[in-house]
């Protein structure tokens, strides 16, 4: 519609994802920047961005169950672990002498399988979860993390056991490895760039899926369960069914994220999947913005890049030490303090998270120079 860009001729147009020219332009610009960045930034930063992209998939998953459907889950680390180990087992070297199981399968099998096995784990947990809400659900999912942690430590044939660990899955799709230097469409890519594009492509696809779920009847039912569960049920939304859906979709996302995340570090240690990891994902959701997909991505980027920023702190603040045992505070302690502090500050001052800050800035400039 030349000249009247906001005139919609169909409901489909009105409900589209990119239903304004501004959204289309900004999305195109953002995509261009994201493609351009890995050729400019240093390799370690590119790897960090790849980690952020994959972590964002996990954050989207947690946001579906916690942000959209309102079911607090502290058990996200467990599902990340299930995904990571499913991928590692399916991909692992069958002839390895280390004693861990492996089947040597390709990425097109282990990637969906990691999601599906995690989703199945979510389905097993869901019947307990849908009988509880609020704090009680948080406690049950907290228990899940500890049970999972125990299983990961003890199932040595799958995980290698504490202190030993095992190799993570290698991202090889039909003979092309994202984790080794290679060329795509004639463009030579280093290891970090390959992993970055793997993460970016996976994130774009998974974010699109999540956005579609959010704007569909399923997403509306999630929000109804979150906002008023009795009214939702009277409207014809089956609480049981939608709480299960939310858990299953969320753990599917966690499984995919878990399987891809450790292709970067190439190594899996059973102790990784503890409560702290869950808390990191909760921080991503709360800092980024509950019940928004773009917020999950912003939150994941922030939480992933935060440690890197904190590493720079000791050179400015003398009482904070970069060493493990020294000074008044170590950088690791500072990091954990900051997660807690930021969660509290966001909950008090901007419950809509970074997305809320962005929305306010956008609305300000939309009306500028008027105040409303």
């Amino acid at each position, binding site marked *: 519609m030349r000249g009247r860009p906001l005139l919609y001729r169909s409901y489909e147009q009105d409900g589209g994802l990119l239903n304004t020219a501004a959204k289309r332009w900004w999305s195109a610009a953002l995509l261009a920047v994201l493609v351009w960045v890995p050729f400019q930034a240093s390799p370690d930063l590119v790897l960090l961005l790849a980690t952020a992209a994959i972590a964002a998939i996990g954050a989207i998953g947690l946001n579906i169950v916690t942000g959209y459907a309102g079911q607090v889950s502290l058990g996200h680390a467990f599902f990340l672990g299930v995904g990571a180990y499913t991928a590692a087992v399916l991909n692992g070297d069958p002839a390895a002498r280390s004693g861990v199981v492996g089947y040597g399968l390709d990425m097109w099998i282990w990637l969906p399988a990691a999601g599906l096995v995690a989703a199945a784990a979510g389905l097993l947990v869901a019947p307990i979860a849908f009988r509880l809400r609020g704090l009680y659900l948080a406690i049950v999912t907290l228990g899940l993390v500890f049970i999972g942690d125990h299983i990961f430590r003890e199932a040595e044939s799958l995980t290698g056991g504490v202190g030993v660990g095992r190799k993570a899955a290698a991202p090889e799709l039909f003979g092309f490895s994202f984790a080794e230097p290679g060329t795509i469409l004639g463009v030579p890519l280093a290891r970090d760039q390959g992993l970055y594009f793997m993460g970016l492509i996976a994130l774009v696809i998974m974010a699109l899926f999540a956005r579609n779920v959010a704007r569909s009847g399923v997403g509306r039912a999630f929000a*109804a369960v979150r906002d008023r569960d009795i009214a939702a049920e*009277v409207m*014809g939304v089956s609480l049981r069914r939608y709480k299960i859906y939310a858990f299953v979709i969320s753990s599917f996302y966690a499984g995919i994220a878990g399987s891809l995340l450790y292709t970067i570090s190439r190594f899996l240690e059973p102790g990784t999947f503890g409560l702290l990891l869950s808390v990191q994902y909760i921080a991503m959701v709360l800092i980024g913005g509950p019940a928004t997909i773009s917020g999950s991505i912003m939150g994941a980027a922030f939480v992933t890049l935060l440690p890197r920023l904190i590493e720079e702190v000791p050179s400015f603040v003398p009482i904070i030490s970069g060493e493990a045992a020294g000074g008044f505070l170590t950088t690791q302690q500072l990091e954990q303090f900051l997660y807690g502090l930021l969660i509290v500050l966001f909950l008090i001052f901007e419950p809509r998270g970074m997305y809320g800050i962005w929305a306010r800035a956008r609305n300000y400039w939309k009306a500028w120079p008027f105040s409303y």
Partner: protein
Amino acid sequence: MAVVSPSATSRQPLTEFLGGRTRAGDERSLLEVSDIVLRFEGVTAIDTVSFEVGPSELFAIIGPNGAGKTSIFNCLSGVYRPESGAITFAGESLIGRRPHAIAKLGIARTFQNIELFANLTVLDNLMLGRHQHIGYGPAAAMFYAGKARREESRHREVVERIIDFLDIENVRKAPVSMLPFGIQKRVELGRALAMAPRLLLLDEPVAGMNLEEREDMARFILDIKEELEIAIVLVEHDMGLVMDIADRVLAMDFGRQIAIGAPESIQQDREVIRAYLGEQHESRGGES
């Protein structure tokens, strides 16, 4: 602001989407409640109440605070389960069914204290009313193509027609928590209508409204009954409204059924007057 113009080809009347009578069978009574009893720890909230509601009848339940009116609604919509007695709707028993299963049979309700989904827009709230008519699952939702896309447009069409009917076009994309009370009540009515029910339960639809809002709401209720031919059970304290629009009235007091009949006979009923005004007014009966 975005402008939405429905395509000109699909200008069917709202009755095509929501007509209550057209889909109903030939039952003499749509809803039959017989001898239901509900107790909470020694308090008898409902004590053997029986009534019937015919197709496209406007049936009102009145009574002082705590008489058990809303408890009856909660039994009808499956939120509470009565201890004894039977409730049948269009030949199906409602006892023991989950609320969402009852919704599926064609019973919609509004709440005394607005129970809208506060973070969602008017549009999304009404679309949630269409929920039970949505036939695609989460896998189709992920791709949002083909069936899911077509269904969303089709339900949007129905919802837009209801928005038009209730005259709330200007707030369709506003989050409901931002809207004034009277409009929220209207949105809640719209959400119940979107379910395309055969029976609509309205719990105090005009409570807390000013005269103009009350008149608007009364007009909507009559339109729903007469144009859409949807049966309505109404709980309301506004006696003027009830006596003006109800076909039959059930009066309750302390969980007991004290009178049932046409509005004129209820107004004259000694028990009803006693329940509302107390014992000493009994001798002056009928002057309320």
